[in-house]
């Protein structure tokens, strides 16, 4: 059963990923990516990471992709005559063979895994959200705060970059 679900999810993920990079219209690309994100969330559930699955849908699908769509609508891009770079066959060949080699290597080599302190039962007993929160706010408190700083900087950066007057003022000063 689990196997079947995994195969379904994995297949859809790969297909959607291929569509994301290959479809001509940017809106379709975004839609394909959206589908893929939902299925990745399914994979997370399969891996006992329910909280992350929810976050994946809310943040990625709900926030990030909507932002993409907004921008697409805003710019109203015309579809291009040639949407692929000239080097695409070469790139697909090279990178495809690298991927194939790595996949081969991964199948050949097994993963001998040590067991950690949080097996599935323990997490389930505490609750996935709570155990993540515990770790995040104890061991990873400083990185967590730094992450907020990264977001703040990104926010300010986005504002500065897109604010028309700022750029024009700057340009006038230059000239």
């Amino acid at each position, binding site marked *: 059963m689990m196997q079947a679900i995994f195969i379904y999810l994995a297949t859809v993920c*790969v297909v959607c990923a291929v569509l994301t990079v290959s479809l001509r219209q940017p809106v379709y690309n975004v839609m394909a990516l959206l589908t893929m994100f939902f299925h990745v969330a399914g994979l997370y559930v399969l891996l006992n990471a329910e909280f992350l699955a929810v976050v994946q849908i809310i943040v990625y699908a709900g926030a990030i992709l909507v932002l993409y769509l907004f921008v697409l609508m805003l710019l109203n891009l015309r579809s291009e005559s040639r949407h692929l770079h000239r080097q695409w066959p070469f790139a697909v060949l090279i990178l495809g063979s690298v991927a194939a080699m790595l996949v081969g290597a991964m199948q050949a080599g097994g993963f001998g895994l040590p067991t950690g302190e*949080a097996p599935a039962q323990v997490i389930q007993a505490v609750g996935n959200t709570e155990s993540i929160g515990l770790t995040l706010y104890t061991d990873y408190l400083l990185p967590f705060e730094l992450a907020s700083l990264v977001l703040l900087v990104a926010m300010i950066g986005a504002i500065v970059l897109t604010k028309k007057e700022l750029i024009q003022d700057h340009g006038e000063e230059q000239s």
Partner: protein
Amino acid sequence: MIPLSSYVILSAVIFFIGVIGVVIRRTIIVVLLSIELMLNAVNINFVAFSHYLESITGQVFVFFTLTVAAAEVAVGLALLIAIYRNRKTVNVEELDVMKW
């Protein structure tokens, strides 16, 4: 039971699709989407290892990846708008002022 290698292989495949996307697409917006693909591939890896290693740390790292992805989208799209405003194009091939 699904073996760990299945997840890892899946993640590798998605990651390389993302890389190919970055290299071959001419529109910035799809390039950015491809980067999202790559980040998601990494996330799958994190969660899978977290599960099989029975350690919660991997899931915590997904949060940080998520943060970085959000920041990247914000800045990347802002840049996109700024570029479009100045050059009236989002074609990567035409953005080649940074050369001799």
